[in-house]
């Protein structure tokens, strides 16, 4: 080996080292970022319980939201039950309506007419996914709310309006996951069912959907997570009144709406502001919970 070769090897080793260190650092950055999001949101979010001495039980289950008042034990009234209930009800509504539509669309794309599905329905679903959430909110506000006001009555700003907007927003998520899960099923399943004399509907209902069910459920959970975390589109149409809804046409409020509206107008360190950070922490923990749930499902599927 002459000197030239050694120089080349050295420079190769150096570039290898730089490249490997840089990409490893990028990988580690993702870990650091995730942990610091948890750490910083949590450090702000626990102030309600440590500095303001609100019990976790009261925060989760009390419906008294009067953060400017001080109770007998010196603690502020920051019960978040109404916001939590609003978020849960509206996301469950969206998932219940969106799931059957999504599954039907997925079946259409993979089993009924793959040709039309590939050409029209799949691009349509991708476009649905591309529409920004403020645009969904604006359509909800300018078409859906007046429509509901004129047909079912009330203000129009309602749980129903938010539920419908979210239904459309999470449809692409559930539909594309469901379509992928049906597409990867071995064709033996279909052939065996047809060979036994089953009709197409019997095959879909009895064989294909049950086989794809764990993956479809993953899609549903992802949709649920998206609905739970959506802020602006919901805030624009739900009415934002701090009370439990008595029916679908009543306005109510969600965790994300109150954070969006009040974070900017409250003083940092006040009980009001701290409660908003606690809600952000709650959102964070819930969305992490959804991910853990998805991991459980896919592990069982393997």
């Amino acid at each position, binding site marked *: 080996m002459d000197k030239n070769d050694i120089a080349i090897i050295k420079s190769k080793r150096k*570039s290898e080292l730089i490249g490997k260190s840089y990409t490893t650092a990028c990988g580690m950055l993702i870990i650091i970022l995730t942990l610091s999001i948890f750490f910083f949101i949590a450090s702000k979010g626990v102030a309600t319980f440590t500095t303001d001495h609100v019990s976790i039980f009261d925060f989760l289950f009390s419906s008294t939201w009067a953060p400017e008042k001080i109770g007998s034990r010196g603690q502020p009234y920051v019960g978040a039950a109404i916001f939590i209930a609003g978020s849960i009800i509206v996301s469950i509504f969206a998932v219940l309506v969106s799931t059957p539509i999504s599954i039907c669309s997925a079946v259409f794309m993979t089993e009924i007419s793959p040709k039309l599905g590939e050409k029209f329905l799949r691009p349509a679903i991708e476009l649905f996914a591309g529409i920004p959430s403020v645009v969904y909110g604006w359509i909800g506000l*300018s078409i859906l709310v007046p429509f509901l006001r004129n047909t079912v009555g009330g203000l129009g700003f309602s749980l129903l309006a938010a539920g419908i907007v979210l239904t*459309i927003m999470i449809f692409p998520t559930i539909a594309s996951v469901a379509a992928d899960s049906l597409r990867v099923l071995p064709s033996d399943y279909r052939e065996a069912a047809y060979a036994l004399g089953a009709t197409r509907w019997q095959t879909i209902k009895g064989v294909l959907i049950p086989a794809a069910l764990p993956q479809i459920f993953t899609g549903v959970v992802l949709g649920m997570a998206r609905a739970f975390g959506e802020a602006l589109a919901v805030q624009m149409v739900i009415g934002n009144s701090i009370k439990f809804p008595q029916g679908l046409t009543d306005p109510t409020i969600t965790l994300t709406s109150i*954070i969006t509206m009040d974070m900017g107008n409250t003083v940092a360190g006040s009980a009001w502001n701290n409660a908003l950070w606690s809600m952000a922490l709650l959102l964070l923990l819930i969305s992490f919970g959804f991910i853990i749930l998805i991991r459980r499902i896919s592990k069982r599927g393997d």
Partner: protein
Amino acid sequence: MKAKTYDRIATAVFYTVALSVMLLLFLIVGYILYKGLRTINLNFITSSPKFMETGGGVAPQLYNSFCMLVLSMVITIPLGVGAGIYMAEYAKPGKITNFIRLCIETLSSLPSIVIGLFGFLIFVNRMKLGFSLLSGAMAVTVLNLPSMTRLSEDAIRGVDPSIKEASLALGASKWETIYKVIIPSAMPGLITGTIISAGRVFGEAAALLYTGGMTTPELRFDILNPLVRNSPLSPLRPAETLSVYIWKVNSEALAPDARQIADGASALLLIVVFLFNFFARYLGRIFHRHHEGSK
């Protein structure tokens, strides 16, 4: 015979649902474009918003959206591609890699408002960047990093292993192979993926409310010094984007023609996002054809 009847009914139901979904998309997009295109004209995209009077435009917001897009992609691409290379080439199966995957999944499912609040705590307050273009761009980076990483990893894994082996056999080091062989072959996937995630930056609003800010200073295009707050090149000016503006116009509505402004801005936003998608798809097809042709 009963089974056949059910089968026919089911088929009809599937067709109806599929048609309704497409009809709904057509109606939504049609409505936005119909309402919006009446508002969009040269004046609308070249003039500033007006306070308490009609006829305001969205020029600064549109400009800010593009600045946000460019700045956030400048930060996201090197980090995301780097992490993607790590996951595809260097990461060994084990606890750490598994943990990174968990982090990627968690990050990508976080509500964007939560990421906005994180940006507010760290970039706006702790790093003292204030409500600024840079804070907003970094928040959007956090939002986009998981998908950028995932698509880079997929694009790199999709490269034919024989190309990689050939390069290694010729005596190239691993990094040389990645840098000179794998990345160029993965380029089509990287580019189309990047364009689609760029479209997402354009539509993002919740993560920007408390990072990029909800105001925009009067931009003076004669000041090119990026350290001056009014300079269009300054990364430290508050930068309200088009999508944030749509939200603000609706909730505050200081202009009497707020509805028309929101109509026009929504249509504009939709057109730009769709252009990104079509462009990505078009490029994807060209790359595909090129690839097929070279075989």
